[in-house]
């Protein structure tokens, strides 16, 4: 087939194109995935026993805000990474801001506490549960974002995968904050950050296999 024939064919398939679809669908899917993940947490683990009184306290809000800011930044970059010609990789360091804020708060807390409390502040009661649960619950939003990414045109699929991993960890953090009974800043900064890093690496390594077009 001649290139001119191909062009004739394509111009016959001309129709109005909605360039806002990807943006809207990214946010809608993220909210839907968050709701589903939160539902899954409630169904499988239940809320922390004191959620009714605790949900307005700083540590619970901080956990949700940490997850929400990581997810929001990552979702913007994710959406941009599905559009060729934009260069969202340059803005990837922005994701470090909530992580650094959490780390700063954690160091401040440790500095003010006696050294013998450090172990309890960092490890809390259920650090293993957090480290396993957050990546596990994050698989749900990760799959949703993967399906969405296949509708875009990712030219840097490792970046798309990393952003999807980051966003899914952020969303799972919000959902898991309904259950997680550990409330110290060093706990948040250590285990949630590690869980986020795990998902980012997983996304960057696994997703590119499914994102060729």
């Amino acid at each position, binding site marked *: *087939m*001649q*290139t*001119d*024939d*191909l*062009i*004739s*064919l*394509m*111009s*016959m*398939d*001309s*129709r*109005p*194109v*909605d*360039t806002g*679809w*990807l943006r809207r669908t990214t946010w809608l899917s993220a909210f839907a995935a968050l709701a589903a993940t939160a539902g899954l947490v409630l169904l499988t683990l239940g809320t922390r026993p004191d959620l009714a009184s605790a949900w307005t306290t700083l540590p619970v809000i901080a956990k949700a805000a940490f997850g929400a800011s990581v997810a929001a930044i990552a979702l913007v970059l994710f959406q*941009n990474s*599905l*559009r*060729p*010609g*934009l260069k969202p990789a340059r803005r990837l360091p922005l994701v470090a801001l909530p992580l650094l804020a959490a780390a700063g708060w954690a160091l401040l807390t440790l500095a003010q506490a006696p050294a013998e409390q450090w172990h309890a502040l960092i490890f809390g009661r259920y650090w293993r549960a957090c480290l396993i649960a957050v990546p596990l619950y994050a698989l749900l939003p990760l799959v949703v974002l993967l399906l969405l990414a296949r509708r*875009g*045109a990712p*030219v840097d699929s490792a970046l798309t995968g990393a952003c999807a991993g980051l966003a899914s960890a952020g969303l799972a953090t919000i959902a898991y904050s309904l259950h997680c009974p550990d409330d110290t800043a060093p706990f948040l900064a250590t285990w949630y950050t590690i869980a986020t890093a795990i998902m980012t690496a997983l996304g960057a390594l696994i997703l590119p296999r499914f994102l*060729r*077009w």
Partner: protein
Amino acid sequence: MSLQELETQLRPIFLAALAGDAAAYRLFLDTISLRLRGYLRQMLARAGRTEASEAEDVLQETLLALHLSRHTYDAASPVTAWAHAIARYKLVDHLRRSGRHVGALPLEDEAHQLAGPPESAAVDARLDLARAMEALPERTRRLIDQVKLQGTSVADAATAAGMTETAAKVAIHRGLQAMAQFLSKRRKQP
């Protein structure tokens, strides 16, 4: 022509095409394909490949990808950067698939090359798209043959292939999707 001039020329045309203007879309495709052909030949030559038919193959694959990815264009960004990024992705993929490592390709080539001399002389592609065509359903293939013979009217081609115009449009869209899919599947099993 500078990249800026090319952008100024192409952007309003492409925005009209996205709004559904078929004539504008045709003009956009004609213009961008000249630029992309020049870019692809130049880059393939740098990788030690001088056969024009190979560039034509990658060009056709790139055009299909542009067509099926129109919804990924961000209206606030330059359309030349969008087209270049897609061409580059398809080029790197083509080189990888055909067993040459991409080392010879400058990693950060920029869209400026689109502003280089346009290459108008289309040459015959090798067999890629012809083979993709064979994978299409009989009716769609007949329709596409009609389009090639009759020129540019969907209505005429539809009548000749015994379809309604709407059915013909749907068949063309599915046909283009199937061809793109065929090309990217073949890539996974070289």
